[in-house]
């Protein structure tokens, strides 16, 4: 199915090229926003440009990877609404696998490649000492971050099983999550930080690993090992998302149109 999608999309070369360029530009704007903020201030939430740049680059990479892999799940509400989900359910394949393959978007690879390039530049700019330890952390972090974002994509999409007219409400956590993780969590108020950083786990996408990579203590007093908690958080988030998904699919009653 993925191969068929890739072949069909490759038929429209110009459209595909435009999509890839657009995808890269979305990544460019993510990073440019940080540059603009640092044009007017020297520090943000107690962090300098090099530090926030690295956080933003890690966040964009993690988000882009998740968006590429499972971003299409946000179309679930369209499928539920139109009844197309019934067709998906009767096929002898996993529902989630089908949904993500149904309209896979290789064009989104642009943002991912750009994000990885930015991580490389940010690492150089912030003078991260390259040891086997820091390199391992740099590889694990975006993977764990992508899993966290992926879990958020899936978990928020399941809202459509219960609430068909939910519109773009999931965006608050998916795209909002990207917005959140691009900045140090010190800038957010207590309530927002509890919800996004700890409950959802967004602090582990970029914030804690960046502190460790740059040998900085957490101004909020978090212990050092939190830098390595990403995979664990990603595991829990994935499990919760999978559970919600299963409950959602069971709960699903066709719109019957």
């Amino acid at each position, binding site marked *: 199915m993925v191969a068929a999608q890739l072949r069909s999309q490759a038929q*429209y070369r110009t*459209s595909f090229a*435009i*999509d890839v360029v*657009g995808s890269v*530009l*979305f990544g460019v*704007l993510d990073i*440019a*926003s940080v540059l*603009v*903020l640092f*044009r*007017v*201030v*020297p*520090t*943000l*939430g107690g962090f300098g440009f090099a530090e926030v740049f690295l956080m933003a680059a890690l966040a964009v990479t993690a988000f882009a990877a998740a968006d590429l892999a499972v971003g299409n799940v946000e179309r679930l509400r369209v499928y539920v609404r139109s009844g197309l989900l019934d067709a998906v359910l009767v096929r002898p394949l996993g529902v989630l696998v089908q949904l993500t393959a149904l309209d896979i978007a290789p064009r989104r690879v642009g943002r991912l490649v750009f994000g990885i390039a930015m991580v490389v530049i940010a690492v150089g700019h912030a003078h991260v000492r390259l040891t086997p330890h820091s390199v391992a952390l740099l590889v694990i972090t975006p993977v764990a971050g992508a899993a966290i974002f992926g879990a958020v994509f899936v978990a928020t999409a399941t809202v459509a099983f219960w*609430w068909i*007219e*939910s*519109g*773009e*409400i999931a*965006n*608050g*956590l998916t795209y*909002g999550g990207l*917005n*959140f993780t691009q*900045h140090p969590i010190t*800038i*957010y*108020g207590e309530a*927002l930080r509890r919800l996004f950083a700890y409950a959802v786990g967004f602090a582990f996408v970029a914030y804690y690993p960046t502190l460790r990579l740059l040998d900085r203590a957490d101004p909020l007093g978090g212990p050092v090992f939190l830098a390595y908690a990403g995979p664990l958080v990603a595991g829990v988030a994935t499990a919760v998302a999978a559970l919600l998904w299963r409950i959602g699919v069971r709960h699903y009653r066709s719109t019957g149109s």
Partner: protein
Amino acid sequence: MAIGPRMIRAYLALAAAGFRRYATYRQATFAAAATNSVFGFLRCAVVFAVVDAGARIVAGYDRAQLATFVWVGQGLIGTVLIWAPPDFADRIRSGDVVTDLLRPVDPVWHLLAIDLGRAAHSMATRFVIPIAVGALFFRLQTPRRPGTYVFFALSLLMATIVCFGCRFLVNAAAYWLLDARGPHIGWTLASGFLGGLYFPLWFFPDAAAAALIVGTPFPSIIQLPLDVLVERGSPADQLVLLTIQASWVVIMLALCRFVQRRGEEKLVVQGG
């Protein structure tokens, strides 16, 4: 085109239909306003971090002005409707647009009337909900000069028309491209980043901000109404901003009419 009382009645009826159409999507409207509010909290945290890190005034805004800028900006998203589904482009691609062309009203005015009706509906929902949420948690600035209310109302109306014009042109690209996704992506990128939604354009170097405001329609949609509302500058400055917006209203509507005429000549309805 003759504008007689009958035409005006027809456009008013279309506007009323636009209003009623959106009044039926109550849950989706609420969901959208809730999403806008979540982003209000996130964006507000960022601009406050900027104020806290720098002087008390950043790029000409104080804390209350920035909070107002962010929260009213979140309300504006739904009023001017930056992100609308490409309905008209789909009609061009499918050929349904022929029905629109057969009607005795001009397609541009027809769609504008519906859009203004929609915007009127959003004033009571998507506009006020984020602002109410913002006012509940933050100190927002109410206008100090009574005239600002009038200026802002005018500015909001013009912002809606300019935004409509931009969306119409993006959709009308389908007359030539069939797949208007490229222009659509470009619009999504430009409207947020160059329009002042993600942060005030005055965070850019002054010359760049001024060039964008005068030379592109995007700031007329978000940045200018908000600058008028938070009273950045004197009443004379507000009038300058309104004049820029008015110029863009004229330019965009003229462009829409021109593009629509050329598009009709170009239109090939695919048989099937």
